[in-house]
């Protein structure tokens, strides 16, 4: 019994260590781990390691952190059990980052209808000024105008480009008969008239994946586009956001913070290269290899936001874009340079990209964002600029 008690104390110390490192380990996991240790004993390190990992960790991304903590605990169980001490201050940044990711992991229940801005702001904005703001380039905006644009973006009604699913919901005018419900009501009613209970296919929006270029040439748009992506990620289910410059970074979890400023702070912390050069080909290839299979299932739409200026001379862009097009339902290229009436895809990157996208659209002001939103919701049939 005392032996078991000592074991449990050690285990609790280990769990505390894991939590300090940022792993989401709760009491249920701890109990499962205790049960597992009782089953396998403590004789063999490999087995103890596997038993604890199977019960305390639920995703592969946490394995590395767990393995470090385990190695520490196995050697010095007492040291690991100490409460947060002076070592805490010297905690390496990646672990801190994990802690924050873990904090951001739980997405608050979505309530897309809540309006956060008071309606008088809209009334205060004169129609002409509103019009001007809509046409104004993000590039030419001052701080106050950016603030106003942000408020507008927050109010954009985000698209529900519904696709039929294989699920049904009751609908009195639906095309199919729900035999189970029909039979049940018929028996309950007791009459001879059989009222048919009908159903219709449920519809829901497809997943959305945004790949946003944040390299030097795109930096002036990045701020406002991030706001757009933040609003998108928080208003709609199944949105993934990736930023790329020379490297590709998944910022979805960070962007899922309701508060935009907190979200951007976290994004900035996990980004390796803000406003560096662009490697579109590399970034797209990385996305194809590591993420496409994980986020593009179930008919996803991809928004590729870039000006097509590639430092690596468009190396691999065409091949990666072609692959990307084949893996998603619709590939939409949002290009801030497209605002110029006579825009020709002169840069090698743009020329490599253009044949492979389904749509090529401008994003440089609020009006173009609104058009995009309309296009995503299937309201305006988009003009197809590319084959």
């Amino acid at each position, binding site marked *: 019994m005392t032996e078991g008690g000592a074991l449990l104390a050690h285990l609790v110390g280990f769990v505390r260590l894991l939590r300090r490192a940022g792993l989401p380990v709760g009491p249920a996991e701890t109990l499962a781990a205790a049960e597992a240790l009782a089953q396998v004993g403590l004789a063999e390190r490999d087995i103890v390691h596997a038993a604890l990992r199977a019960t305390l960790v639920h995703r592969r991304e946490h394995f590395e952190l767990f393995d470090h903590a385990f190695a520490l605990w196995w050697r010095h169980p007492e040291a690991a059990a100490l409460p947060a001490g002076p070592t805490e201050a010297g905690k390496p940044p990646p672990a801190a980052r994990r802690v924050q990711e873990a904090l951001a992991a739980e997405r608050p229940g979505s309530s897309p209808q809540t309006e956060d801005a008071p309606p008088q702001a809209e009334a205060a904005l004169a129609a002409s000024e509103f019009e001007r703001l809509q046409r104004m380039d993000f590039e030419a905006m001052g701080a106050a105008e950016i603030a106003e644009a942000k408020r507008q973006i927050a109010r954009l009604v985000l698209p529900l480009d519904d696709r039929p699913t294989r699920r049904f919901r009751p609908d009195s005018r639906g095309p199919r008969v729900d035999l189970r419900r029909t039979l049940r009501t018929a*028996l309950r009613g007791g009459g001879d008239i059989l009222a048919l209970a009908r159903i219709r296919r449920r519809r829901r929006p497809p997943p959305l994946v945004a790949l946003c270029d944040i390299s030097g040439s795109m930096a002036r748009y990045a701020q406002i586009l991030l706001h757009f992506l933040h609003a998108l990620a928080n208003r709609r289910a199944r949105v993934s956001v990736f930023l790329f410059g020379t490297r590709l970074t998944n910022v979805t979890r960070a962007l899922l913070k309701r508060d935009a400023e907190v979200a951007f702070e976290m994004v900035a912390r996990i980004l390796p290269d803000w406003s560096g050069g662009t490697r579109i080909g590399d970034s797209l290839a990385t996305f194809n290899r590591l993420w496409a299979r994980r986020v593009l*299932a179930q008919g996803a739409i991809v928004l590729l936001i870039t000006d097509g200026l590639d430092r690596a001379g468009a190396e691999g862009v065409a091949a990666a874009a072609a692959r990307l097009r084949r893996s998603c339902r619709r590939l939409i290229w949002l290009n801030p340079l497209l605002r110029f009436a006579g825009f020709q895809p002169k840069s090698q990157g743009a020329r490599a990209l253009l044949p492979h996208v389904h749509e090529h659209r401008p994003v440089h002001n609020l009006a173009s964002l609104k058009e995009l939103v309309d296009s995503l919701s299937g309201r305006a049939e988009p003009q197809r600029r590319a084959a």
Partner: protein
Amino acid sequence: MPLPRNVAETEALLSAHGYVADRALATTVFLALRMGRPLFLEGEPGTGKTEIAKVLAAALPRRLVRLQCYDGLDIAAAAYEWDHARQLMAIRLAEAAGTAEDRAHLEHDIYDRKYLLERPLLSALAGSPAVLLIDELDRADEPFEAYLLEVLADFQITVPELGTIRAETPPVVVITSNRTREVHDAIRRRCLYHWVGYPDAARERAILATRAPGLPERLSDQVVAFVQRLRQGEWFKLPGVAETIDWAQALMALDARELNPDLVDATLGVLMKYEDDLAKLRGAEAARLVAEARGG
């Protein structure tokens, strides 16, 4: 047959049925059996996740109940469905016999167990002890996950018209995912988690010895060395163990004794399934890997 008593016995049991498991996987399987928890296996395609369930079913021995997941999988396809045609027929017969007037009795009669069609989940709970394989859960959608959570919590299914059906012997549950979508935390927390990675060279040779018997040892060494080196590279899709086994069998069918560049070029389609990858590998790159595999 009783459950294995320790990790070593689990390892022996799995290998006796042709599955070469590493220590961590054997430990996790052992714990899943002892603690009565579902086993949640994630990993790249072709690394033997589904195979675990089949081997467990053969080894324990229990019947294997397989539920292949897909988008829109609902209760009617996953758990149970009323046989409406036969129910309607029963009503007509009752009318013909003049016994349809007693409504309560009729209702009781037509919601009888014999009109309930068992689908995999119910079948795994209701019949003799089973191994329940829930394959590729990432393909199902969130509503199904939520329903599954309910079933896995108590190993029971409630049919509103009939009552609650509870498993006498809880099934051994194996859930697999290829990560085309993140499976929700709530499911993960119910389960014991294991990531099935690519095996190291020694284990892959052992797998070939059991799954491709008759493969010359020299060729087996070269095949494994080639595939292991191939996995170091950046490919769109890395070959899994299933591909290694297929390739070994293909080479045997061609009576190969040793790897050579021509042979590899001719059979690459067994190993790599994407044209981009094939174009990059065919020729010089394949020849380089063959040379390394033969040298090593």
